């Protein structure tokens, strides 16, 4: 049976592609891409799907972001050297006590990795578009700023019930005794942005250019360019929670 097929294949004549309509060529290429994507399975070939996953907003919002400016941060995560200058700048700027943190650098360690065993991963509040904390807060003490999309605190309304801490998939919140309220990263809104500055303290302090801060709705901003491209992988943390973060990770 197979012999028959072999002969048939060998006797096939090349018809050339000149006569094939463009439509059919495109269809064929798509099939190829899908198959490659499915079977490669690894991170490289799923870049396309990762970008879709990483987008802060559903497809239809890609062109019109819900906030203006739509503040966002992109980490070029391979550049981080764990110098912690960002953490120090954050503490000073936002009066963060020693028992808490608004941003932190996680140390990833993988013995089985073939290249470097250690990698640093900075984290902060992801200012989600579908924030679990904001939904859960009984008194709107934490809220999504209607203009900027920053997840902020109205400290005087905070009951300290800690449901936002339990709700946050990113461990971005802690109880601040001095403020008698939950404290968290507000992209330096109170300390800097509201006073006319355009960049957060951590992004300014970073000597390695890890933290890129800007307006995701502005096509000229660096964050826009970093997120809207396919050449390099862009991802968000814990996409499965459907919180739609506005903090992205990429490599330089």
């Amino acid at each position, binding site marked *: 049976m197979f012999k028959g097929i072999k002969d048939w294949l060998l006797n096939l004549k090349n018809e050339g592609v000149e006569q094939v309509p463009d439509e059919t060529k495109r269809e064929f290429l798509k099939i190829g891409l899908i198959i490659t994507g499915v079977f490669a399975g690894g991170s490289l070939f799923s870049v396309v799907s990762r970008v879709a996953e990483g987008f802060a907003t559903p497809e239809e919002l890609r062109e019109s972001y819900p906030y203006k400016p739509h503040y966002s941060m992109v980490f070029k995560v391979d550049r981080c050297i764990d110098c912690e200058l960002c953490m120090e700048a954050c503490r000073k700027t936002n009066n963060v006590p020693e*028992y*808490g943190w608004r941003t*932190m650098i*996680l*140390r*990833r*360690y*993988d013995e089985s990795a073939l290249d470097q065993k250690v990698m640093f*991963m900075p*984290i902060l509040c992801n200012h989600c578009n579908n924030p*679990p904390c904001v*939904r*859960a*807060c*009984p*008194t*709107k*003490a934490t809220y999504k700023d209607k203009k900027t999309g920053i997840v902020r605190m109205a400290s*005087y*309304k*905070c*009951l*300290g*019930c*800690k*449901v936002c*801490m*339990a*709700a*946050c*998939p*990113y*461990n971005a*919140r*802690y*109880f601040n*005794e001095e403020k*008698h*309220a939950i404290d968290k990263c507000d992209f330096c809104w109170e300390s800097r942005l509201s006073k006319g500055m355009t960049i957060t303290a951590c992004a300014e302090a970073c000597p390695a250019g890890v933290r890129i801060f800007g307006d995701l709705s502005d096509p000229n901003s660096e964050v826009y360019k970093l997120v809207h491209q396919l050449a390099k992988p862009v991802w968000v*943390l*814990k996409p*499965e*929670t*459907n*919180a739609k973060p506005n903090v992205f990770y990429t490599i330089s």
Partner: protein
Amino acid sequence: MSEKKNLGTSEIEVTTFSQTWLASLSEFLSGTRVFYFLVGLSALVLLITAMFGVNAMYKGYRHAYGIYREIPWGILISGYVNFAVTSTGLCIVSSIGHVFGVKSFIPIAKRSVYLSAVNILAAFTVIFFDVENPFRLPIWNALSPNLTSNIWWMGTLYGAYLFFMTLEFLLLLLGRHRYARVFGLLVLIFGIAAYGNLGAVFGMLYGREFWYGPHMPIYFIVSAAASGCTAIIFYTYLAYKITGEKMEREMELSLQAVGKIWALFLAILMFFTTWKIITDFVGGEGRVLALKEWLTGKYAFNFWLFEVGFGLLIPFFLLLISGFKNLNQMFAASVFAFIGFFFMRFDFVVVGQVVSHYFEFKVTDFPVILSYNPSIYEIMIIIGAVAFCIMAFLVGEKVFKGHKTEIH
């Protein structure tokens, strides 16, 4: 004409009402030595534990409690759930009689409503010591409501629940059963809605795999009904033991009926627990990690001995052995279940948080499984709430003369 008539009726009500309280006071003063000793003892425990609570408030919860940033909810939340569950459960089970008119459930009604109020007060007291700014709660709950928040709904509905329950109890005391029935229905509706929201507080946290899912409110309601039956059997049996009175035939039949539905609720809980575990096994990695910690890790002892043994199997088989007739065995079952259920709620709250947020990235800053140990302050507050329930139960028995109901 009709106005005048109404006026007349309310005047009579007022006199009956004040007479009731006077009678209650004299009743309280006529107690035996043992009664005063027990009330005094529980009051003393309550006082000591209250000092712990106030001290913790003064020190700051970060210093006094075992909770921390990664595990913000500890034994106080479990305790709150436990007392709220008992309150709602008492309300559900007793409503079968005095709301829906099933005769055999009527004798337990008064005591259940009273204990239901006591338990919800205990729950509020425990949560008072967990929330960092409890005094802001009534203000901002009213001025800045977040309608998507389950905690907001729960707080508001439980407020209404307590209000209607107080009215219901007063009406029951005054013997106004028809009105009491209307309020009983309201209490039931508000109680179920509030408690469903408490389930959803956990079930709707989409960042927490172990809790997330639509089954949580349903599970909470079944668990409430089971707790309600436990509490009715436990307290009613004790009430008769303390006074040395012989239990009336109606009450005996009533407890037997409660025992039967209790067995049913226990069976549903077993069914649920089994399927929760089986489902978790095929869930995400975080879910599996939490499950392993629960069944084979630090919480395995709690799970197998207290949850499965004390909470489900032992009471279930004791009930079967008792043939729903032997009240001594049923009481023993309720003691086991009381202990087992507390562990059930403790594990539920804690295990939901033990998996570290960034475990999948192999970070060295946090262990994969976090641990929580309640501090002495937290434990004392729970003991205080238990002491409060016991004291209120004893005083209630005396003041309301054994919560007797005349069956018409």
